[in-house]
């Protein structure tokens, strides 16, 4: 039996260590409960690509994410890719719609302006469709990364 597994010398039996650990846990949980930054970073990052990182003053990362995701979406539209709608009933359409929805405001804007609704006439249009779906999925990853940064799960 180890000397630290029980008895008065064990760290979990030392009052000073216990008090410090409890105080640290309480303050960490209180910060997590009271701070709205993680939720804001998640939602802002989803609505506007890179905004979750920009909110946390990660200027270069936020700008790179924004440029990459917006450029992928714009290239997808320029290639005459398709923007998926909800409730088509086809399972693959639903999955593609979920990917498109990851683009946040870009998707809403494209739907409002009736972009990406033309019938496919060129061979590379399918690339455009995939560019936009992947841009949405990458945006979800970046929003979750911003959330992890805000909660402290990711170091820096």
């Amino acid at each position, binding site marked *: 039996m180890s000397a630290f597994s029980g008895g008065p010398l064990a760290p979990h039996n030392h009052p000073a260590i216990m008090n410090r650990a409890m105080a640290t846990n309480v303050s960490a949980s209180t910060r997590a409960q009271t701070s709205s930054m993680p939720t804001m970073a998640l939602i802002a990052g989803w609505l506007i690509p890179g905004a979750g990182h920009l909110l946390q003053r990660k200027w270069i*990362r936020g700008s790179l994410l924004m440029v990459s995701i917006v450029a*992928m979406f714009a290239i997808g539209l320029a*290639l005459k890719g398709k923007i998926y709608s909800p409730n088509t009933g086809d399972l693959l359409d639903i999955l593609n719609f979920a990917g498109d929805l990851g683009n946040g405001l870009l998707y809403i804007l494209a739907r409002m302006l009736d972009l990406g609704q033309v019938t496919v006439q060129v061979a*590379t249009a399918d690339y455009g469709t995939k*560019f936009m779906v992947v*841009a949405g999925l*990458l945006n979800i990853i*970046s929003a979750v990364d911003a959330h992890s940064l805000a909660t402290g799960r990711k170091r820096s």
Partner: protein
Amino acid sequence: MTISHFGAVLLFSLFTSIVFGITQRSEPRMMIRFGAFCFVLFVGGTIAASWIMWLIKH
């Protein structure tokens, strides 16, 4: 807009690698290394798959 197949591969790999690099690593140096690694894998994998398809056809 028209784009070649290889051009599409390069653009897709570039933007995807940037996002992967930033989100999957913590330190800036490791972000660049992982992003470059992903880019090489994307482009190299596509070229390798293309040659395999060509060999199967011929």
